[in-house]
């Protein structure tokens, strides 16, 4: 009797608990989702609808004018091509360098392994800082070159730890012992066993590096002066943040309003166009991203 009363009370409490949790998560979902939907809907609306704030949830006066303006913009095209180049060449280099470094760090029999690991890990907590880095790049003649966008970040320590931890935990060391009895060298073992078995972690770090390159802004800001080398993010800054349209020059108020509406619309479309490559791969890559975040969080 007492037990069943207890159960009934706790389940009544649970009903309230679940209701609160469901509502809270629904609220979180909406708060995150709404700005995204708003940007997307605005980008497909007409300049005047954007200008007068008539877009609330769905596109108003559906139009593709914003996208037409984006694709007419030569800077955007230049930036897009550059960013794709930095991302593909950079990621290729990143993955190769990271795996080459992760392999010896994962092997317990590597001489000085602890020292090497420390040398890498230390750079996570201390760095030369902005100016010494800049002086170095200038000394190496890398300022205003393609390579300054891919070389300095060739190995990300976080990704290195992810790759090393993966190799350590999921490829049994006995495999190497068996292979070495058959005369397999350390180098051949990397090529024939480690790389093929590391596909999952290679996917993870490649995605992280690729997103990093696509979104990178700081290095380009300090190391690049030539507009022809600018990645998309620098052009985005010009349009989205440093407003390049000067309303004072426009006398006709109607024309001014239309221009202002067009400028706003262009921004929404530009946000969508520049973010879509990342969000397009995301649904397929989500499980890899999540896996990477988890592997990296393990102490190793």
């Amino acid at each position: 009797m007492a037990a069943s009363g207890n159960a009934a009370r706790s389940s009544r409490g649970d009903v309230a608990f679940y209701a609160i949790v469901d509502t809270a998560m629904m609220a979180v979902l909406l708060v995150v989702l709404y700005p995204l939907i708003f940007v997307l809907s605005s980008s497909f609306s007409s300049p005047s609808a954007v200008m007068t704030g008539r877009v609330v949830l769905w596109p108003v006066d559906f139009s593709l004018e914003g996208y037409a303006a984006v694709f007419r913009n030569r800077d955007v095209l230049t930036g897009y091509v550059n960013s794709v180049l930095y991302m593909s060449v950079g990621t290729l280099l990143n993955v190769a360098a990271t795996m080459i470094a992760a392999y010896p760090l994962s092997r317990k029999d590597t001489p000085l392994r602890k020292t090497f690991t420390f040398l890498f890990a230390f750079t996570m907590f201390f760095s030369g800082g902005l100016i010494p880095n800049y002086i170095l790049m200038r000394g190496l003649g890398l300022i205003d070159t393609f390579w300054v966008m891919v070389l300095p970040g060739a190995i990300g320590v976080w990704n290195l730890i992810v790759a090393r931890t993966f190799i350590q935990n999921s490829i049994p060391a006995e495999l190497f012992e068996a292979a070495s009895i058959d005369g397999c060298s350390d180098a051949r073992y990397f090529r024939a066993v480690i790389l093929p078995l590391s596909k999952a972690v290679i996917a993870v770090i490649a995605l992280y590096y690729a997103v990093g390159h696509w979104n990178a802004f700081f290095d380009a800001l300090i190391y690049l002066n030539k507009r022809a080398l600018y990645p998309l993010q620098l052009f985005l800054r010009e349009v989205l943040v440093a407003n390049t349209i000067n309303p004072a020059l426009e006398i006709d108020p109607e024309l001014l309003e239309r221009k202002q509406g067009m400028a706003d619309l262009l921004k929404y479309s530009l946000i969508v166009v520049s973010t879509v490559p990342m969000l397009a791969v995301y649904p397929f890559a989500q499980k890899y991203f999540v896996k990477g975040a988890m592997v990296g969080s393990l102490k190793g």
Partner: protein
Amino acid sequence: MSSRSSFPDQVVEHWQLLAFMALPLAYLIVFKYVPMVGVQIAFRKFTADGGVWGSKWVGFYQFRKFFESYQFARVLPNTIRLSFYNLVAGFPLPIVVALCLNALRSASFRKSVQTIIYVPHFISTVVIVGMILQLLNPRTGVYGTAMMAFTGHQPADILAKAATFPHLYVWSGVWQQMGWNTIIYTAALSTVSLELHEAAQIDGASRFSRVLNVDFPAILPTAVIMLILSSGSILSVGFEKAFLMQNPLNLSTSEVISTYVYKVGLAQGSSDYSYATAIGLFNSLVNMLMLVLVNGIAGRLGHSGLW
């Protein structure tokens, strides 16, 4: 086998592994450790002719100059305010959200929420700031039109106010990173054994008390490590977002150490390399000190620290 052999023997046996290490090590030395040696210009008066090794030594002159400048009294509190606010607002929320997600009964609803709330993490800082400027525009943004609809008049421009900058900076950051930051806690929660929950259920524990007494203790060690890590960056407010959100009207709260270093060192006409480096070095040292300190405290309290 190899543990018993001497060091030269190991080198001979595993020279190939060392060969693998060669290129990454060269990279590490050139791109990470050479700049660390370059930090010495913080104690010199850098000139183009003298360079890193030949410029005149001035001891702690650059540091004294920074501590005595009026910028120090502005930049340091701004930096601490932003990162502390960020920690207070951004640290507990992912824990709460992860616990809630874990308690959802519908797996498909949980998956949908997770998929959506991870998305903003992949949006670039430039675009995030662009979105802030667009959506919060007092005339054309959502903020402007919503306020117009409710109050009947156009609201003040919150983007041009120094007082609102910290809120905008921190809460847009929470919006962007909260979902992603739940992942690590979700991972920790997935290790909680079902038996533990069943045992608690038989004892009559409600779902809520199981969250408090079963789920929460399971993620506590992870939370401590995350707290240690974030305390190590208490003086490092990221450059990009603060820089991009800056305008002449909010500089009194938005100028932080990293943006000031950039302006002193690279952006102004007369760039002062030594001064900028000294400020940067001060910043890194405080961060390291904090990390060691908080890690030590966590160890004292019986939690496993970072090392």
